[in-house]
């Protein structure tokens, strides 16, 4: 039996949970889905639509808001009671916060960031996605699935709603050591890149802050906004509000030009919805070329000035 741990926020399931259910259906065999929190009628209703044997509800005020300790205490009991062969979770920030501790607690291996189920094992990216590894794992285990590895619309619905049951577990709130405060957003973002028609984004390949000028010139010549991958904003070369990716903005412009961006998944999730993607990178093996429509494997310091010249020439 596969047990999927569904995730929700503000009374709605997240898309990653549906993707994880699709992954479990693809892997085959009986499927149960567990959801944790407090007062989750809407979420349970959404889950019941899935083709699954049962929805398990762990409803306890100690689980709202989320804490790592609370989730580990609850899921440890669920796993011991249900004894699933495999536990599937979405590879979200929340899962990354508690799943390794849960796996250690129940002494089962955890395979993270999986992109495929293969021969009883999994495929996962390593070395920043430049290589993939098939991973073999012994016995009952846990696995997390990368966002987008399975499609949410591939989730099969059941002929009738899946039965829901309250799991009989008790959580000792005094054992929850994390004291969370309410989530908040930073001051309003100065730049809303989601509205940009065209974006020129720079990554590590730009090498130094001074070189941003040529990216800026290209952006001007194209009528594009300038953006960046995480390492550029980490280094302080561009403000954080120009960051594209899982920890920054998600964009879907008409044109996205990636300069010296290798294409880590954290970046790709923020831009792969762009209509036309151009990648310029000196490493022909860079994962960014996986999602690009047009690619130039070359030196951006030669190609970009030539593009700027070409753009000025034909508009002149």
């Amino acid at each position, binding site marked *: 039996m596969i047990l999927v741990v569904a995730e929700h926020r503000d009374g709605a399931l997240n898309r990653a949970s549906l993707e994880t259910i699709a992954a479990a259906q693809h892997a085959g065999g009986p499927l149960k889905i567990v959801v944790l929190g407090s007062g989750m009628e809407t979420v349970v209703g959404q889950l019941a639509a899935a083709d699954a044997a049962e929805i398990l509800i762990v409803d306890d005020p100690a689980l709202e808001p989320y*804490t790592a*300790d609370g989730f*580990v205490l609850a899921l440890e009991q669920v796993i011991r009671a249900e004894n699933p062969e495999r536990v599937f979770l979405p590879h979200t*920030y929340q899962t*990354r*916060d508690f799943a*390794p*501790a849960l796996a*250690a607690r129940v002494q089962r*291996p*955890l395979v*993270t*960031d999986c992109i495929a189920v293969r021969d009883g*094992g999994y495929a996962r*990216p*390593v*070395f*920043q*996605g*430049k*290589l*993939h590894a*098939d*991973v*073999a*794992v012994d016995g009952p*285990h846990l696995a997390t699935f990368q966002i987008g590895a399975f499609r949410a619309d591939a989730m099969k619905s059941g002929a009738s709603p899946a039965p829901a049951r309250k799991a009989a577990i008790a959580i000792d709130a005094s054992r929850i*050591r*994390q*004291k*969370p*405060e309410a*989530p*908040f*957003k*930073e001051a309003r973002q100065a730049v809303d890149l989601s509205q940009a028609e*065209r974006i020129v984004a720079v990554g590590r390949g730009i090498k130094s802050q001074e070189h941003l000028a040529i990216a800026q010139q290209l952006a001007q010549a194209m009528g594009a906004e300038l953006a960046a991958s*995480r390492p550029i904003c*980490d*280094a*302080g070369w561009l403000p954080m509000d120009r960051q594209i990716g899982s*920890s920054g*903005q998600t964009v879907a412009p*008409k*044109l996205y030009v990636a300069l010296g961006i290798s294409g880590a998944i954290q970046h790709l999730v923020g831009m792969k919805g762009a209509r*036309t993607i*151009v990648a310029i990178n000196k490493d*022909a*093996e860079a994962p960014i*070329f996986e999602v690009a*429509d*047009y690619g130039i*494997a*070359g*030196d951006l310091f030669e*190609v970009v000035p*030539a593009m700027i010249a*070409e*753009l000025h020439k*034909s508009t002149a």
Partner: protein
Amino acid sequence: MKIVVCIKQVVTREWQLRVNDQKTWIRDQDASFELNEPDAYALEEALRLKEKHGGEVIVCSAGPARAAQVIREALARGADRAIHVESDALASADAVSIAQSLAGAIRDEQVDLVLTGLQSDDQGFGQVGVVLAETLGMPHATIIMEVQAGEASGVRVKRELEGGWFQWVTLPLPALLTIQSGINQLRYATLKGIMAAKKKEIRKVTPAQAPAPSQRISRLYFPEKARKTQMIGGGAAEAAKDLVRRLREDARAL
């Protein structure tokens, strides 16, 4: 405040990856290595906490003999002393083996805080820190963007959530934090730091007999190209001209 920072030595981002003949790991005999970048942010945060609150920063690395390179680098940046859990098998070990090796070395140190990077640039498990916390019986918080220490209630930290959301969480000490890249601006070793590092202690520890790994790489390979990217060749000027034409005429994106 006594802080342990866990660091890992990984191959440099620039090194052209090659897979070994068994297709189970990279051919790293002739690779160049560096400090795992996310761990560099954890080290920097520890040094800043020490500057503000006093105490000691101990770096701990579980890896083969060559990991001494990044340990010396960390000492040169300002860590006070180091523990090296040395074993060749740790170079490609799973997260649980690495966490147990680190736990064995840290357990008797009576620390206030353990900091790790978010994940490693090689295997990228994103597990070692959290498993280490569980093994040591400490509370933990992950993906941390700010640390406020020196409060009676423990340590107050700013967690990064998804989609631009953040959350403050307070933990009693001792606690483990996994640090998000970009939390601070990194310092680099000065000549004075490099000289001082030569006199600092590196304690070598042999890891306890590790249990058989529960997960292993059965095949390592370059991913197949999924999408038909139109690669544009030729010299820079020629390729640029061709690209601009295609963006105008085919993609109608300009």
